[in-house]
């Protein structure tokens, strides 16, 4: 349950950054393991790639692209927050990170259909 003192945009930006980071940390080893088949067992890689034809997998890929994008842009906001002169529009920047990520992942999803 999200407790009342956490109900503000920058806390949500924090939790989205954390969850996307953990999800990517879990996904990336699997991703590289599958990619390694390209070198060692190309026929098995082709077998895995057929999975991407399933609609459910396309939706999952959309989710992955969104997580990657939101982690990148949210991370850029945090790096700017800590390294560049302070800018007061942090909530707008966090919302922009989510918006751009939805645009990128949505475009990816529409092209995958």
């Amino acid at each position: 349950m999200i407790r009342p003192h956490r109900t503000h945009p920058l806390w949500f930006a924090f939790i989205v950054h954390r969850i996307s980071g953990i999800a990517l940390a879990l996904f990336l080893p699997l991703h590289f393991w599958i990619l390694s088949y390209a070198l060692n067992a190309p026929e098995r890689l082709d077998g895995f790639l057929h999975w991407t034809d399933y609609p459910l997998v396309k939706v999952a890929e959309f989710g992955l692209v969104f997580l990657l994008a939101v982690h990148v842009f949210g991370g850029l906001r945090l790096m700017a927050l800590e390294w560049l002169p302070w800018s007061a529009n942090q909530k707008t920047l966090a919302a922009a990170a989510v918006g751009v990520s939805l645009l990128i992942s949505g475009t990816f999803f529409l092209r995958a259909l």
Partner: protein
Amino acid sequence: MTNDLTESVAEQSDPLEVSVWRSAGDGGAFQAFKVPAQDSQTVLDVVAWIQQNEDPTLSYRFACRVGMCGSCAMMVNGQPRWTCRTHVRKVLDGNRIEIAPLRNLPVIKDLATDMDPFFDKWVAAEGVFHPSKSRDDAIEQINPASAPRARADAGIECINCSICYAACDSVASDPEYLGPAALNRAWTLFNDAKDDGAGVILDAVSAKGGCHACHSMGSCTHACPNELNPMASIAGLKREIAKSFFKRGKA
């Protein structure tokens, strides 16, 4: 006359259903009270009414009642707030209101928390004045328009209420973390031309539990009743530590 007026207003609406945290030491539980609703009623008024009319053993802390002393902060419906400046009608959940002691601090009794850890961390963050001159020296001339003074001015209206400290999840997960108020104080002193402790401040706030334990959740800035921005102060400290690193420790 005033009492007659107050009572007439109170009779017009249902009494407030108030849950107040009661404890003496470990453990505790919420106790329900019915409190007459009044116009322009603050949460502190509600607590005072309970103590004066229902249970004189209820312990809480307050002093100025006008938002200057920082004594009366409590958790109100799960949010840390200054109760003397919080109108009941703005925080009511239906007709209910839940009042608890500040989060992240040990409870002495009922709504009174032990503020020692909070103030100990101000000292640990070097949030104390480091004089640079003796009484024989001329007084430092401060240009109020200078950038460092503007940065210091942005943070000096802190009333030490500990609301940011109670709102912070980093404090909750890391007992060593100095917290937003102490780091904000360190930042104002770092930018104060009269303070000679820039080096010791950066050493203190870059140690374990210092500003790098902040995850920039912004709950401190969101909750601050004086609309200060401890998150910006902490980001400023992080930048100055990075600069100091590249300048080989010179503040």
